[in-house]
């Protein structure tokens, strides 16, 4: 691992920049683990190998390293995984909706509302339940991503699920660094 792998180097002198980029800050490990480098380690390594320079670190104090093997693209497994997740989410969300309907007696409510509006006493009025079902899907879609918008930029903005994923990653990195530090202390 060299400095250029974990950050960018700014320097007026191109030769010094090249030199700094090629400073080795971390030795390769065989197994897949997590590890971290603190800013002070990077500074000392850089200062040790090159004379007469100042180093200023801009950004976070710790760098989290994820050491893993070269990923072999296994497409069939990937597709299978996605299919299983899709099946779980499909049937699961369906179950959640049916659970909710049974809980609040949706059938009776819809029949009642249909009777109030049209005056017909129909058992499971399709004219009302099909739009309801479409509405459920539409509601979920509008919550997760902006479907109805003319501007292309607004349609591209991340939905709550992406934000949640991002937050989760951040929290996980923090916890991993903290645990690694605790391990080093003991």
């Amino acid at each position: 691992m060299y400095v250029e792998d974990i950050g960018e180097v700014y320097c007026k002198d191109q030769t010094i920049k090249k030199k700094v980029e090629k400073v080795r800050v971390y030795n390769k490990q065989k197994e897949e683990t997590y590890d971290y480098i603190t800013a002070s380690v990077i500074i000392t390594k850089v200062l040790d190998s090159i004379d007469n320079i100042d180093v200023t670190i801009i950004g976070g104090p710790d760098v989290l390293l994820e050491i893993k093997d070269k990923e072999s693209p296994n497409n069939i497994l990937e597709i299978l995984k996605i299919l299983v997740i899709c099946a779980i989410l499909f049937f699961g969300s369906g179950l959640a909706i049916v659970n909710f309907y049974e809980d609040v007696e949706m059938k009776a409510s819809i029949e009642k509302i249909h009777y109030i509006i049209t005056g017909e006493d129909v058992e499971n009025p399709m004219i009302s339940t099909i739009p309801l079902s479409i509405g459920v899907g539409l509601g979920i879609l509008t919550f997760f991503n902006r479907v109805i918008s003319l501007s292309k930029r607004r349609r591209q903005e991340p939905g709550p699920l992406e934000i949640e994923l991002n937050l989760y990653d951040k929290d996980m990195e923090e916890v991993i660094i903290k645990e690694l530090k605790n391990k080093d202390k003991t």
Partner: protein
Amino acid sequence: MYSFLSAFVGLSAGVVIGSAAAAFFTLLNFISRTIQVANARKMVKIYQNIIALGASAYSFIYFSNITFKLNNMISALVSLFMGYFLGMFSSALAEVLDVIPILSKKLKTKHRLKYITTSLLFGKTLGSLCYWLIYVKR
């Protein structure tokens, strides 16, 4: 004419229910956890669409008397998927309420979380089995 109004009411009720369900799912953030665990984040859009599709399809099936007349084993498979979802759902619900972290802090068992989660797992499975095999059969 009035049936159009009825359809409109149905549509708006559906939108409210759907967005509430989606908000609930994201609040519990177990879907993002699933994606994270499976390391399959390229397809986030697909998952969102599949949730919408699943909820919509099941909503429709709930109100109509459709039967697909499929094999028993397929029902078992579908039930497995639903159970998977329900397990994540209930764990996420307990996690949002911060029951386990607080309990483990009070009991000073921070480094034995593994046992707590394992016992939760077995407890939930056993509870479900007891419900279906003993209570419902009675």
